[in-house]
């Protein structure tokens, strides 16, 4: 007798989906609860305080939460944009020109991929402290702009997607190198650079240690660091737990929206180096 196989595999996949969506569903519900309800009612029963919680979050220390959100958007948005641009230009140069020092630069960059950013954070702090740049927006932005990994991806992508003949034809027509880069090569690399942007956006938004080390003034905090400091104070002020939960929901919603809108641009195949020309 042949058993139909559609059932069990579908069930297992859906189980995985439920596991992954559960905390998101939980925070949606928990954000509706007052502090009392958070610790007393059944986990998935909806509370009545969503609006009150949002109002309280909005008013918390003069609206500092929104400042944190704006900071996160600035660090991740601007950082990833600059990073994608820098990766595109550098990756194209490394892929399409044979020049002295190319191998050296590329190997140094690869070594940079291998050195974990987390280990670098402390010495970066020390060095920036020497020049008085710690506790500034730049201290978080600068280290985020250079991404050896992004350059690596851009190089692979440039090699695969910018045909040699097109570059040669432009040269024959008398276009300068900068012009070829700006109006021919980079536009052809846009799908790959979108991937670099997305990876860099997520990794900057996720980066906890760098701002944790660099920043002292909480007006410059990204939202993750801000919520962490609130959680730490929750030990003595349990009402803050409600705000942390509500804040988590509000901070995650734009990320989820961005993710769902852009998820078809995630070119994971780039990662495995499996790009076909």
């Amino acid at each position, binding site marked *: 007798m042949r058993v*139909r*196989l559609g059932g069990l*595999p*579908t069930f297992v*996949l*859906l189980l*995985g*989906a439920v596991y*992954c969506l559960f*905390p998101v569903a939980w925070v949606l519900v*928990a954000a509706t609860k007052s502090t009392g309800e958070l*610790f007393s009612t059944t*986990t*998935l029963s909806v509370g009545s305080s969503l609006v009150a919680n949002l109002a309280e979050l909005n008013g918390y220390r003069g609206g500092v939460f929104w400042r944190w959100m704006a900071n996160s958007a600035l660090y991740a948005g601007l950082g990833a944009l600059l990073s994608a641009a820098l990766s595109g*230009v*550098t990756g*194209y140069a490394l892929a*399409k020109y*044979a*020049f002295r020092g190319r191998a050296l*630069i590329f190997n*140094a960059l690869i070594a940079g*991929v*291998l050195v*974990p950013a987390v*280990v*670098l954070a*402390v*010495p970066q702090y*020390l*060095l920036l402290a020497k020049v008085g740049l710690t506790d500034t927006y730049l201290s978080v932005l*600068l*280290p985020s702009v*250079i991404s*050896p990994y992004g350059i690596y991806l851009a190089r692979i992508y440039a*090699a*695969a997607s910018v045909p040699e003949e097109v570059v040669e034809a432009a040269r024959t027509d008398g276009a300068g190198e900068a012009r070829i*880069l700006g109006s021919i090569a980079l536009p052809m690399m846009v799908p790959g650079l979108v991937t670099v942007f997305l990876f860099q956006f*997520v990794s900057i938004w*996720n980066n*906890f*240690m760098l701002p*944790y080390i660099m920043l002292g003034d909480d007006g410059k905090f990204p939202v993750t660091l801000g*919520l*962490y400091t609130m*959680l*730490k104070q*929750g030990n003595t002020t349990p009402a803050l737990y409600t705000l942390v*939960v509500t804040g988590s929901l509000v901070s*995650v919603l734009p*990320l*989820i929206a961005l*993710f769902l809108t852009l998820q078809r641009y*995630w070119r*994971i195949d780039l*990662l*495995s*180096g*499996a790009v076909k*020309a």
Partner: protein
Amino acid sequence: MAPYAFVAPAVVLFVLVFALPIAYTVYLSLFRTEVRGLGLGRGSRSEVFVGLDNYVRALTDSELGAGALRVLGYGAILVPTMLGLALVFALLLDEDRVRARGFSRIAIFLPYAIPGVIASLLWGFLYLPGTSPLNQLLRELSMPGVDLLSPTGIYFALANIAVWGGVGYNMVVLHTALRSIPRDLYEAARIDGCTPWQVAVRIKIPLLAPALVLTSLFSIIATLQVFAEPTTLAPLTNSLSLTWTPLMKVYQDAFGRGDLYSAAATSVLIASVMFVISFGLLRVTRSRAFGGER
């Protein structure tokens, strides 16, 4: 001159953000502060060269050793679980008969977009005895509750957060690799009488080996860097010390105790371990990476 102009900004930033800090850390790791007299006033503190002293102290530091062991234990739970689940999900996504594929794929990948700190906050509340749905369920069934924030439970609590955040990403990498396998291979196997299970075990998994090596190494490296999750959970439990992982100890040494020299030596040690592992990754992947260049 064009290529030099194009790579110059990256090279300058690279030197500032990577090369100089690394050199500075190595330099610092060879020194120590010497205090003369009461340690007050100018000139009473000076940097003295101590050679490999800081390294010897780091390597014989019992707390650092314990931290390294804790990370190993955490990784031993995390890496096999995450990759095992990712492999199962990827194979299931690749089956023609499975339904709700698009939905499951996005749902399982979704946690990747959520920062580790936020993930830890959410799971932290799901672990807290007062708010945990698991314990509520167990209470209803009159069974004893589990404390995932206990000294043993914390390994599973942390591993779960990382599995949750990373399983979808690895699933997508593996699924992408699966789709590049020519489908006539399966057709031939089916005609030869292979069941889908046999096709998965005898054809798909062996062909996935390079992708599995790659995802394993990436996961191991990410595991060694764990910092945000235990730091975020620490306010919720006494099971997590401020030096629970080696990186947390680096932070404590540098900013809690103000001993930059020890922190630098420990950083260099951690970086070396990662470099050795990453170098393995490079050897595995580099041969396939570059085609179509001049």
